[in-house]
């Protein structure tokens, strides 16, 4: 290392700039000419964005349920009608729950709502009649939704009946307000999150592949035997992918805002500041992986396991970090996407909240420095 520093002094700054420019130019030509880089940087992001924009929606709209009215009375018909009117259910009706048990087993309905025989009589007698909700527990998420919506529909129906009879409204009304995303459109938070995943793919997966390719093809060896210093070599490698990462992020943001109508309430400056900082750890990790493996196949596997999967699962993108076991929660602190995703969601949905951004930026920067230090240590100008 010391010798390299001496070299850097011996070479005039202009030479260094020229060497750097040459490396960047070379890398850019390679990116443009390699279809797989374009695939990862521009096609895959669009596919992902598209899937999160349309395919994966956590909003349950119209779950199929069966409604069994065991005894037809004006009261039960009225309750049934309110179930049918719910915008969360698409209802098939019947008389006997056994008709639908097979459907529940086969997943053709997600639940069976049963208004039992004697419901009207009990109600008239002032006792507590009950409605049964049988749900398909094999998908707990949907099961929860069905239960909650059924409960909501019953409560609604009761309130309507009571208020007609001038009975007072509930003792405590809880008014809910969802800030930033009042309609709870899942696309609004999934799309910003998937941008972080896209940048992970470009920054870590693609970078680790191309650097590993240089080792495999022997061009790294030729580079190293020239006056280029290790730092120049790495920087020349990174800048093009940094730009590529930002370019594919920009593409995603444009698609998100103009195609998917995701609101953008923050500033462009904050968006780029966050994304640029995030690319530091992403690129650093890619470099580290390629320097450690020097093999495309291993690099890709390692990048998927150590970058893609965590960005997906351990970042709060789909799953709440707070709900994870403590050990896994510790692990998430090392996942850069964990810091980027909430900040990106904020830039899109809430606006510029700098105290939050500053913290994210600082942590991502730190993780980035750590990766770079490790990568620089394993990419000294030595082979074997």
């Amino acid at each position, binding site marked *: 290392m010391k010798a390299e520093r001496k070299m850097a002094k011996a070479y005039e700054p202009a030479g260094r700039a020229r060497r750097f420019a040459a490396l960047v130019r070379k890398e850019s030509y390679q990116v443009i000419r390699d279809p797989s880089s374009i695939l990862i940087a521009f096609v895959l992001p669009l596919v992902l964005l598209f899937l999160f924009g349309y395919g994966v929606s956590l909003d349950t709209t119209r779950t199929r349920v069966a409604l069994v009215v065991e005894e037809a009375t004006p009261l039960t018909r009225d309750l049934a009608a309110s179930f049918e009117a719910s915008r969360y259910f698409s209802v098939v009706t019947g008389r006997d729950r056994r008709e639908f048990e097979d459907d529940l087993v086969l997943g053709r309905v997600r639940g069976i709502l049963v208004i039992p025989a004697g419901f009207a009589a009990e109600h008239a007698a002032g006792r507590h009649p009950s409605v049964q909700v*049988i*749900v398909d527990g094999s998908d707990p998420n949907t099961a929860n939704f069905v239960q909650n919506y059924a409960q909501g529909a019953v409560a609604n129906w009761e309130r309507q009946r009571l208020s007609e009879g001038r009975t007072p409204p509930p003792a405590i009304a809880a008014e809910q307000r969802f800030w930033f995303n009042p309609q709870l459109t899942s696309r609004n938070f999934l799309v910003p999150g998937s941008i972080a995943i896209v940048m992970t793919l470009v920054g870590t997966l693609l970078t680790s592949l191309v650097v590993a390719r240089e080792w495999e093809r022997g061009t790294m060896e030729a580079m190293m035997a020239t006056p280029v210093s290790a730092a120049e070599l790495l920087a020349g490698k990174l800048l093009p992918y940094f730009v590529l990462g930002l370019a594919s992020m920009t593409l995603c943001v444009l698609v998100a805002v103009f195609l998917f109508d995701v609101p953008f309430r923050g500033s462009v400056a904050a968006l780029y500041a966050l994304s640029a900082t995030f690319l530091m750890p992403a690129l650093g990790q890619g470099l580290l992986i390629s320097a450690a493996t020097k093999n495309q196949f291993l690099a890709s596997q390692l990048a998927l*396991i150590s970058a893609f999967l965590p960005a997906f699962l351990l970042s709060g993108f789909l799953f709440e970090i707070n709900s994870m076991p403590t050990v896994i929660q510790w692990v998430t602190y090392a996942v850069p996407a964990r810091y980027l995703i909430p900040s990106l969601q904020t830039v899109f949905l809430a606006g510029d909240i700098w105290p939050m951004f500053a913290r994210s930026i600082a942590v991502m920067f730190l993780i980035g420095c750590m990766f770079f230090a490790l990568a620089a240590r394993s990419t000294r100008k030595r082979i074997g």
Partner: protein
Amino acid sequence: MWWTRLKALIVKELLAVLRDPKGRTVLIGPPIIQLLVFSYAATLEVTNVDLMVLNRDDGHWSREVVQQIGGSPTFRSIELASSPHEVRLAIDTQRVLAVLEIGPTFSRDIEAGRPAQVQIILDGRRSNASQIVSGYLGRIVGAVAAETPAGKRAASETIRVEARNWFNPNLTYQWFMVPNLVASIALLIGLIVTALSVARERELGTFDQLIVSPLRTHEILLGKLIPPMMIGLFHITIYILAAVFIFGVPLRGSLFLLYGSAIFYLAAVVGLGLFISALSMTQQQAILGAFLFMVPAMLLSGFATPIENMPSWLQPVTLINPLRYFLVIVKGVFLKDIPLAEVVHQTLPLCLIAIVTLSSAAWLFRRRLE
């Protein structure tokens, strides 16, 4: 004679994967990490919630509400705020997920029999969690309301909603997740192993050796098909064992049905892998190709979200996804003991996919050899 040739090829394929340290790493590392991370971390349950309360009422009822919340295991911490500014800041910076705001007349309203109100402010950026938390808070507030004088009066007439969860009485999330993983790990491993097997032979030049040998094209295909299926079955078995003995998922249906359909599922997956393999020239292209297929296949399978929630124009796309069918079978056999007819019903499309992918892979291979 053909059996001698085929056996040699199958043994070679298995050895090539298992003796290569890289191959072994891929077969052992990612599956274990996946099993652990997915089954423990990927949960849509919400716990350890941080909540803020802005309580401007000093009466009994607001204290009751806060106390009830404090007693719930869902909430990790309750921070008391003194001003709307603090509320804004805490939500903005995501220090808390939700804020419960209680107005100054809350207790007085209740005592007076007037309708009282609380406000729940939730972070819409984390809309999934907020929705669930809002449900929890609603229930707690409801419970307090039931104890108020007005509530007690109204309670006489309320209708109870009795929930019964079939197949998974406590709605344990892992009972859902782990069977899903059984299906998806087979996709992951089957696809990668197959996609790489041909690309690697091409790069190393051993593919020529196979072609000049007396092996016929269909024998080569079979030789490439069977070993990844065996490896896939091995992973399925390991995951089933983990499901039953580590995660305690009940296995109610017939293992025989599960394995029977798994063979067709794996054939479909391996067919896809061979197809990708035949299309790609290098290992890198094979890896990226498999990845490019895998991500949409996972998202459009009913694993992450139910297929019926997707837009109607997107739903037909899922019909060509083998994972979609096998997910129904695995979950069905594990939790619901689905009947034979349903297994057959889901297996038929798998057969069809297998036939299409395998024959097009064979066709592509023949063409590539020209």
